[in-house]
Each structure stands twice: as structure tokens, then as C-alpha cells.
């Protein structure tokens, strides 16, 4: 059964949407955060893999919205609405935001994982999208896969077993 499912892959600083029976996945989340927005009834979901908390950090003119929490989540919500999801029914599941290396340094970007998670939560709350489940923080990389059929988010890490949230 699972072999027949089409898996749509989302890269880093990238986004996409799927409808059941498609599945959407992103691999190797470290300090980045994967945000899934979905409409449970319509079985449609989108995933954005963000790297940075805020688009105000951008130092160049051209902006890839999927790179930042603020622009990425807003953009994904719009694309989902345009493709048949009901804006008021959108819910979120999030994963990632780990701290991959531990050492002392004055650089703010070292704690980027935590800052990404905080930013994601702030943006979601300002859009009044509730977080149904999350697997965030820690120091492990994650691969995540969302199935809009049952609204389950699969999380795989190197050291632990696969789990569903």
C-alpha cells in the first residue's frame, strides 16, 4: 500500500502542498523547522522548511519567502487557501529547531534552532492557527513526513525509533 503512495519532497528553504493520497516529506531538519499546515476535512496539507526566524534578517534584495518563518508560513497559508483548503480550518504540526552543535560563542545564530521555534509559534498564533502537535528542540536531526489522509506526522531521528504525532 505505502509503495503506491506518491511522496512529494520539499527541500531546504522550500515549500509545497499535497492532497490525499499524496504524502509530503522533508529530510534532514537540523536547526531548521518544518511546519505542516493542513485542513483535516479536505485532506489537503502543505509543508514549508524554513531556515531563519524573520525576513528582516535578509541582507539581499531578492527574497525567497520559504526561507523565513514569517513569510514562509503566511505564504503557505495563502497557497493552501487558493487550492481548496478552508483558511479557518487550518491547523499546524511542527518539528525541528534542534541545536546541532554545542559550544560557547557570542554568535546569536548558534541558538538559531530556539529562535526559529519561537518565531514559528508567534507567526502561527498571529494567524490564529493552532498547533496540534510538535516535536521541537533537542540536538537531533529529523526527517518528517505528513499524510493528509490521517493527519499524522511521522518523525524519524537517527537515535530513536520512528514516531507519529
Amino acid at each position, binding site marked *: 500500500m505505502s509503495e503506491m503512495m506518491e511522496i512529494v519532497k520539499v*527541500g*531546504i*528553504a*522550500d515549500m509545497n502542498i499535497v492532497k490525499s493520497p499524496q504524502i509530503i516529506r522533508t*529530510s*534532514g*531538519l*537540523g*536547526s*531548521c523547522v518544518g511546519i505542516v499546515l493542513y485542513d483535516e476535512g479536505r485532506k489537503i496539507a502543505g509543508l514549508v522548511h524554513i*531556515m*531563519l526566524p524573520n525576513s528582516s*534578517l*535578509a*541582507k*539581499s534584495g*531578492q527574497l*525567497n519567502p520559504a*526561507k523565513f518563518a514569517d513569510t514562509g508560513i503566511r505564504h503557505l497559508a495563502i497557497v493552501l487557501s487558493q487550492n481548496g483548503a478552508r483558511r479557518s480550518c487550518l491547523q499546524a504540526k511542527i518539528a525541528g529547531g*534542534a541545536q*546541532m*552543535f*554545542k*559550544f560557547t*560563542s557570542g*554568535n546569536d*545564530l548558534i541558538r*538559531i534552532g530556539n529562535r526559529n521555534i519561537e518565531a514559528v509559534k508567534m507567526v502561527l498564533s498571529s494567524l490564529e492557527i493552532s498547533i496540534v502537535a510538535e516535536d521541537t528542540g533537542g*540536538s*537531533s*536531526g*529529523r*526527517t518528517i513526513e505528513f499524510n493528509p489522509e490521517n493527519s499524522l506526522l511521522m518523525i524519524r531521528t*537517527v537515535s530513536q525509533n520512528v514516531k507519529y504525532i
Partner: protein
Amino acid sequence: MVIDSSCKSFSCLSNERLDLIKEVGNIGAGHAATALSTMFNKRIEMKVPFVNVLTFQEALEITGGPENTVVGLYLRVDGEISGNLFCLLTVEQAEKMASEMLEKQGADYTSLRDRMSVSVLKEVANIILGAFISAISDLTKLPMYPTVPSINVDMAGALISFGLIELSQASDVVLVINTSLFEAEYNQTVIDCNLLFILDNPSYEKLFHAIEVSDK
């Protein structure tokens, strides 16, 4: 060497400049190979560095895919030239290195997450990556200050993406200097490590300037 048409921030990179960067990578890797050779008392060879402008996703793919489990030794470089330097090893490679080093000290190898193994591998990183950095610093006469190395065993994508964060504020592409050091013995690679240097955006111009001036 082809620069992808989607190249945004590095569109100024000519073939000559890419060759210069390759030469910088060559010199850095040569010194790292010598350091590794001295440490393990083995003959170490190196591959011609791969230097190219990649998208972030392409950069995460260079060690066998973002989900591939690797041992990442990482250090941050600050100073006039700043960036992130990785030494990526397969789990088997790291285990071999750690056990060989520990045996020399008369200690037993237990596991990769053991305190002794971590400490030994950090020392390996210090020596190899330190040699890489000091060679480039000597060449350019620009100060570079490496931090103490960190180590993690995890998905390649999760480790490498950490090195892209600083750069990602200003760019959607990355210039990657990637090279392999290896020991080929009886057609079997005994030591094989992947060096990956990701420079911060403003460092390129400084680097070019320093080499081009010293060339004249």
C-alpha cells in the same frame, strides 16, 4: 567549471576566480593531508578539490543525501575570513580513527559516543582542520581564528544546514570547497574524510583580493 544560471550572489565569479578558490582549497587540503599522515603515520592522498556554486539543497546532497548518517566534526572560523568548516566521516571511518588513536594510547575503544572517543576525534579535527585553516591564513596573510571543534553523529542534512545559516541571510546559493583525504591500501580505503568549507558572504571578496594582490 559552469556557474549555474540561477546563481545570484556569486554571479561575479569568473572561471579564473573559481580556479583561485580551487587552489586555496588545494593548499588547505594538502596541509590537512600532511597533518593526518603524521598523526596516523600513513600515506594520505587527496582528491582535487571540488569547487562550485550550489543551491542549499545541492549542498546537503554532497555526502550521500540529507538523511545519510555521518559523523560531523565542525568548527567555526572567525576573523578577516570567516566561515564554517566541516570534516565529515562515515560512522565506520570515525570508529576506525577513534579505535586506532586510542590503541596507540593503550586505551580500549568502546563506542563513538564514549567520552574518550569524542575527545580523540575532536583532537583529530583540531589537527586536520587547524592545518587547513592555517595554510589558508598563511597564504592570504589574513588572520583566521578557529573555535574549539564540536562533534555530532547525525543526518548529513541536519549538520550541514547548520553551516549554511549565517550565509543564508544574504544568499540562496553557496560556494562549496569540498575535498577528500584518503588512504588507499590494498585497494581498500582505510581513512577517508570529507572536508567542507563554507565561507560567509563578505569573505569571498577579501579572499580574492588577498590572493590577487599576492599574485602580482
